[in-house]
């Protein structure tokens, strides 16, 4: 299969642990993968906290969360309009060959062990050098 974009690449930093922002990161990531572009997601700080087992469920809306009521309403509407869940999007991201890199510095800071994280999603561990190195070879980079 000839793919002129085979070696194109995008890097995304997922710094936020907010439900809506993580969802956006995975939607954009899946979008690029669907166009044959390589994608690396770097999870750090609050983003990495959300990558802990059960973390997607606990994630709050960045605005209008209203003690979880806002999130409940958004989830209802996401279901009504047949939008995939974060979990489905994350699994799809990995299935399409996307890489998820966990920030090992955040892991030390927050006392997160490898087994605390969604090991089914995390493909590698690294720090800022890894992000910079990959981004230098990329078309563009996003900070979410």
């Amino acid at each position, binding site marked *: 299969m000839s793919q002129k974009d085979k070696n194109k690449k995008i890097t995304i930093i997922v710094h936020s642990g907010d439900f809506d922002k993580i969802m956006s990161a995975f939607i954009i990531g899946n979008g690029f993968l669907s166009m044959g572009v390589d994608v690396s997601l770097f999870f750090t700080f609050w983003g990495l906290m959300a990558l802990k087992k059960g973390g997607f469920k606990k994630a709050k809306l960045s605005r209008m969360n209203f003690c979880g009521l806002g999130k409940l309403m958004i989830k209802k509407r996401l279901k009504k309009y047949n*939008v995939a869940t974060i979990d489905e999007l994350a699994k799809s991201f990995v299935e399409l060959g996307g890489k998820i890199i966990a920030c090992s510095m955040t892991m030390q800071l927050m006392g997160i062990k490898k087994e605390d994280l969604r090991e089914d999603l995390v493909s590698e561990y690294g720090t800022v050098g890894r992000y910079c190195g990959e981004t230098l070879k990329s078309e563009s980079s996003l900070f979410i």
Partner: protein
Amino acid sequence: MSENITTIVDCINDNCPMPLIKTRKAIMKAKQGEIIKVIGTHEQSYEEIPMALDAMNLKILDRGKENGQWYIIFQIV
């Protein structure tokens, strides 16, 4: 041409970004020469799947709309 279609990707009622994802998954599974037909109802995907196909250098054989659904047919080269 329709008798040569090897895979049908059903995206009816799917919302963003599932039609793109399902199309990509089908492409990853397909062998050279296979003809794939994607059907769906998500309006923007009718414009955006061709963008993805173009990015992957895949040519569209046919696309159109009928009975409130759209279809896109392309071949793996």
